[in-house]
């Protein structure tokens, strides 16, 4: 069964304190791995898609990387406005759907 596990469940950082979020997955063939940001009561906002091991993508203070078994979302010098739930999802080879992890709740304090 396709599965996505995100850790930690929650993370508190001071402004400027860099860290990483982890997304490990087991899937029957990977067509893509997605990162989304979700603010309370709102729909997920698309951040990145990664397709193959070794691939990296960056956007402002965020950098996503992918290996054969996991992905990391690195946050460099975070600001309070980066506070949100970060969701990881995989697109399995079979069945056109995204399988989501439970998310990591990030709180950045000034």
């Amino acid at each position, binding site marked *: 069964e396709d599965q996505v596990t995100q850790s930690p469940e929650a993370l508190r950082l001071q402004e400027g304190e860099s860290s990483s979020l982890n997304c490990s997955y087991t899937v029957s063939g990977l*067509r*893509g791995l*997605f990162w*989304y940001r979700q603010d309370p*009561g*709102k*729909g*997920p*906002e*698309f951040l990145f*898609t990664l397709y193959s091991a070794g691939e990296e993508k960056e956007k402002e203070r965020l950098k996503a990387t992918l290996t054969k078994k996991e992905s990391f979302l690195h946050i460099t010098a975070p600001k309070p406005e980066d506070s949100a739930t970060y*969701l990881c*999802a995989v*697109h399995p080879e079979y*069945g*056109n*759907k*995204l*399988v*989501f*992890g*439970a*998310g990591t709740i990030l709180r950045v304090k000034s």
Partner: protein
Amino acid sequence: EAGVTQSPTHLIKTRGQQATLRCSPISGHTSVYWYQQALGLGLQFLLWYDEGEERNRGNFPPRFSGRQFPNYSSELNVNALELEDSALYLCASSFLPANTEAFFGQGTRLTVV
């Protein structure tokens, strides 16, 4: 360019009633996906529609159904509502039926009392 729009924003229903949720995809997108996000749980895949046809279905009972109209907008119907159906229902759309870079709407918060 308008994003994915969902209506209503909030919906309160009584147990046993039916709920209808609506979604308009981004212009040019033909695939529409429905997800359920219950409190404390991750997003669970409900349904995928493409070109007016149901293409895939998640592990939900038949009382969860929907359709896609010729203009690619979509409707999710939940019959015989149960308390545990209370959740944020999210619609997403994509240009190709590969779910690549699917964009989500703001969701409909359904509360069953």
